[in-house]
């Protein structure tokens, strides 16, 4: 009987303390710092090939008639 009380007490303690754990998903914001996922386009836009492709597209479509 005494061991049942002990087990019950331990279980209740575990459940009560479970809410005290720290979630790893919390984002602490800092001024001016983007902390979201990195956009793959950011890296792509750095490549000279992509820049050339966009310039070629501009010259093909948007120059004066």
């Amino acid at each position, binding site marked *: 009987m005494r061991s049942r009380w002990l087990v019950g007490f331990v279980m209740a303690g575990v459940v009560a303390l479970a809410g005290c754990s720290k979630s790893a998903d919390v984002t602490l914001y800092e001024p001016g710092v983007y902390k*979201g996922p990195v956009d793959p386009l950011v890296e*792509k836009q750095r490549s000279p090939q992509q820049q050339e492709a966009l310039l070629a597209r501009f010259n093909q479509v948007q120059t004066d008639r």
Partner: protein
Amino acid sequence: MARMKFLCDAERCIECNGCVTACKNEHEVPWGVNRRRVVTLDDGVPGEKSISVACMHCTDAPCAAVCPVDCFYTTSDGIVLHNKDLCIGCGYCFYACPFGAPQYPQASAFGVRGKMDKCTFCAGGPEADGSAEEEKKYGRNRIAEGKLPLCAEMCATKALVAGDGDVVADIYRKRVLKRGGRPQTWGWETAYKA
């Protein structure tokens, strides 16, 4: 490195709203949200002028400066983008933006405001380029496909130009030289008009 910019030539814009329609169609922009709009000065008066306005992808973007959750980021060529998963729809960016670019779709009943939506320069968001998730949240990613914003590419009179700021400036400079002067659509005469 290029710096992507929009330029609208008021002498050429005929207020056809083709850019607005192209944008809404390309990105499936919901009802009530306009990422781009045509503004007419002195509407109905002889000499009226129109310009097409959207997010101008500012170099020092005030929307990013005031965002409490820092959901904005800028690509290496100056395109200002945002993350809708981080956005809390507070509306600060709308107050900060001098162009009225940020838009808020109605999220649910009773006018509850949703996540901010704005022109992405047809560059999507932080999700994988061309993914269904990106298209659903931000519209099509034409930049990743090697294309430029559809609003500018669709412009019949080439009033709206979008691309590398240096190349855009060269085109506009040539036009101004050909016309023999700068229009007074904006500037001192407009700002201090009685």
